[in-house]
């Protein structure tokens, strides 16, 4: 957040129009200015999130995502699936660069997706179906005839960071969806499904329904391989979501079944609200302190440690949740101490203090009996939260020559023997000296 503020303050110097506001800025690109009314409730939702929204038609000449490598907006909503071009020269690379600079994207597709949009999505590991296809589900479709081909998607990923409302009450969740399907690249671990098809969901061509019967099942995207909504978080923690339906963002779908709805139900509006909150970095964002490492025997933090020292590793992690920093809640934060291979891998214990925005994760660790330059790696990668990777490189020394134990219990036989030999020598010499034979030999 501080970082975003910093960008803004730089930004303020030369953009007098936003002087009044220090809110994060979002840009919504819509097909034409007329379409604004269809999305009015969506825009209202965004504004409620204390985001300064700029709405531009795709044909607008002054569409610009960044200037001098500095993003002009924090978030971009692409609500124009059929757009063949954006402004005067925004291409796939511009959007990729926008994400590389830390910008978040809400990408909305639909049947009739343009090539530009399709290529843009594929950069993120999301492969949309051909433009002339749509998603059908004849077992779970909307009963009314006014909204043809609207399906009821209930296969929502239960992720408390992305969809907290759904995670709390998973039974009554349902999303109305009408549009195109996509699949995700299994090699790309940054993208994951949020709403998948149910077993009866398929993607079919518009013109010829009979083609469906001819096509072999492997050629048809269906079931849980078919994605409706996916989320993406890049390595620099910029976020994006890919939605294959424009309609589900529209006012009409927000109120599709208001009359039938019961209080605990989770429908399009709540879903979109949760999803946008996540994409706009208002949830699941982590911050952490520099890890504190010190020797437990004397509470001293050193540049390097010795083998088998007992140290305490502790790190404070805080999570941004709905506008405030709260202690990060997880019981699976692991620390690895590795030198090519992990020598120690252990789960850190979580402690919280009341009224603290941090949770402390710590553990007493006996360092490995191996010297070398070790990497203390805390890697916590979970869907929906900031990728956490904290590394500290710390050398571990062997014992110095005078630090080994002086008296070993195993060696007592040797000590005993040496003293036995000494005393035996003295005894035998005495006996010999005072023995009669010796005296005789002296006398002779």
């Amino acid at each position, binding site marked *: 957040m501080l970082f975003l503020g910093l960008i803004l303050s730089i930004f303020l110097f030369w953009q007098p129009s936003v002087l009044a506001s220090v809110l994060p800025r979002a840009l919504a690109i819509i097909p034409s200015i007329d379409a604004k009314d269809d999305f009015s409730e969506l825009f209202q939702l965004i504004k409620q999130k204390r985001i300064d929204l700029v709405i531009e038609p795709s044909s607008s000449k002054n569409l610009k995502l960044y200037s001098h490598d500095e993003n002009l907006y924090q978030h971009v909503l692409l609500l124009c699936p059929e757009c063949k071009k954006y402004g005067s020269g925004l291409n796939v690379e511009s959007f990729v660069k926008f994400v590389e600079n830390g910008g978040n994207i809400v990408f909305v597709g639909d049947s009739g997706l343009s090539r530009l949009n399709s290529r843009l999505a594929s950069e*993120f590991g999301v492969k949309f179906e051909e433009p002339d296809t749509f998603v059908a589900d004849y077992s779970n479709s909307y009963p009314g005839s006014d909204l043809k081909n609207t399906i009821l998607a209930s296969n929502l990923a239960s992720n408390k960071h992305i969809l907290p409302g759904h995670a709390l009450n998973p039974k009554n969740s349902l999303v109305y969806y009408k549009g195109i399907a996509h699949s995700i690249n299994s090699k790309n671990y*940054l993208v994951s499904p949020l709403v998948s098809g149910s077993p009866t969901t398929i993607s079919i061509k518009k013109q010829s329904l009979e083609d469906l019967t001819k096509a072999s099942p492997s050629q048809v995207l269906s079931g849980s391989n078919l994605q409706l909504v996916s989320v993406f978080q*890049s*390595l620099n923690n910029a976020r994006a979501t890919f939605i294959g339906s424009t309609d589900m963002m529209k006012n009409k779908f927000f109120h599709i079944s208001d009359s039938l709805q019961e209080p605990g139900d989770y429908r399009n509006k709540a879903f979109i609200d949760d999803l946008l909150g996540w994409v706009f970095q208002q949830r699941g964002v982590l911050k952490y302190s520099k890890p504190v490492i010190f020797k437990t025997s004397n509470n001293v933090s050193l540049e390097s440690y010795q083998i088998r020292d007992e140290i305490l590793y502790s790190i404070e992690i805080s999570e941004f949740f709905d506008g405030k920093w709260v202690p990060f809640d997880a019981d699976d934060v692991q620390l690895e101490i590795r030198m090519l291979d992990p020598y120690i891998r252990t789960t850190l214990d979580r402690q919280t203090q009341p009224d603290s925005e941090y949770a402390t994760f710590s553990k007493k660790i006996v360092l490995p009996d191996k010297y070398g330059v070790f990497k203390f790696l805390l890697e916590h990668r979970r869907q929906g939260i900031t990728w956490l990777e904290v590394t500290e490189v710390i050398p571990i020394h062997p014992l110095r020559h005078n630090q080994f134990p002086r008296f070993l219990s195993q060696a007592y036989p040797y000590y005993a023997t040496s003293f036995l030999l000494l005393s035996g020598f003295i005894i035998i010499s005495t006996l010999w000296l005072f023995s009669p034979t010796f005296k005789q030999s002296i006398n002779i």
Partner: protein
Amino acid sequence: MVTSATIYKILDNIGLHVNIRDVCVFLAPFFSSLTAISAYLLTTEVSDSISGLLAAAFMGVAPGYISRSVAGSYDNEGIAIFLLVFTFYLWLKSARTGSMLYSCITALFYFYMVSAWGGYVFIINMIPLHVFTLLLMGRYSNNLYVSYSTFYVIGTLASMQIPFVGFQPTFTSEHMAALGTFGLIQIVAFTQYLNMMTTRKHLRTLIRPFLTLIVLAMVLLLSYLVATKKIAPWAGRFYSLWDTEYAKKYVPIIASVSEHQPTAWAQFFMDLNILIWLTPVGLYFVMKDLSDSRVFLVLYAILGSYFAGVMVRLMLTLTPIVCVLSGIGLGEFFRTYLNFSALDNPQLSKTTKSSNDSSNPQAKGKAKAKPTPEKTDANNSSFEIGNEFSKMVQWFTVFCITLLIGLFQIHCTWVTSNAYSSPSVVLASYDSKGNKLIIDDFREAYNWLTHNTPEESKVMSWWDYGYQLAGLANRTTLVDNNTWNNTHIATMAKIFASSEENAYEIVNDLDIDYILVIYGGLLGYSGDDINKFLWMIRIGQGVYPNDLKEEKFFNSQGRYSIGNDASPAMRDSVMHKLTYYRVADFMGQNGLDRARGQRLPTEVTLNYFDEVFTSENWMVRLYKPKPRDILGRVPPK
């Protein structure tokens, strides 16, 4: 290292302020001079000083030893060979005299040897073998008992002080022979003692069951300990000495080292030259007049030549004994052929001969001389002619042998200057006009690394270049020449042999910043990474049998090809790609790989790595793995 530091400090204290580097550079030559002296002492111990001087001279020039003792070769072997020869000298001396003092000094030098070189195992097996053979030959003496017992006890205790050895003498197979011999000599000594004290008859009844019992108990105990793994089995390196195929089958990493290959005959000739023929001569003279010490030489010669035949590196241990035996052989030769006194004064020689022969010289000499004076004259004249002739033969033979020695000297100088003096980092070649070209690609690349990469960056290469990278480029390496962890080396092999995608994962996991490969195809330098690649696969296969398969890297005709007809696994492997990336662009589509005489592959693509540096003659190529893609695209952009 301790040695050079000590020398440095001593020189510093007596007012000679020498750079520590100079001490290191001249350490090996200095110790080789000591080796020559100890070779003299060793030979004099068993023969006479003429042979000793010759042996020392041979020691000084034999290329087999010079390979490790040129100035600047700062290696353990440099001092180890001196210690080996000197320890053997001291041992022979102590065994002959039975002096406890000499045994102690032997043990001390043995201790020094243990601290200097892993080859100390040779000593600790050689000396017990000597003792054992002497016992078998019935040459037991109290001297032997005293010297061996003293040496074994002090030497073993001392060697256990070295951390690397630790308690190994008590439980590894390499040291068992010494322990067993120690036990045996105690029993033999005890028997001798009983022999002295009791009569023969009593002894028999007493000793037979007793001895059988002890031997039986020892054998049982040993087999039990070996079976329960209490005694560590022989290390792979030692197995390969008995079964030359062993290493290739089970420990490819040992077999992959060129120094561990069986020795070629040409190598013997190059390193030893005429000494090869002189050795049997020396051996003959040694056998002819056998003594306790000479048995040792025979044993050493047999074992040494066997080991040298198995492993190129062990040529080093063979060289001293070859020099000693050649010295003895040549010494005997010169003693016979340069002895003109017998010819110059036949009368004298005759009388001396007869005087030697008979117990009553005067009477016999007179009796012989008086009756036939004419005959003696006639004899004398024929003797004169024969004398002249044999004198000529003598001179001729001596001349020939001296010439041979002179030629040997020239050969040694040539070998030393051509094969052993040039550093392996800088190569030299000659163009068609005979001008010398210096190929300095290694240092060029290492300098580039020093000046253009962050200090903490990690460079991956095959382990041969680990020390060079650390020393010349001052960069961290993943494996180097002293890596004991076979898995790490196998992991490097796996990276080189897998496809780009799989290798990229491992490379990222290990935080590798740069990858270095050696390519000799442009120069015709055959020691490059592609030629080592098969060994890498074999080594990797031992640890990752599921991921690496040697046969996949041969093409459909079963050949180890690198061009367009290479096998798919070969063409996909990172090593092949890094080596041949852009080479065809430079050499032309019909270009030839000069190290292998094959056509170059024409289409080599590289998606996960960026070329960052290629040296002047394309010998050293450096690559950097692309940074992880921020959007997770495969391959990264």
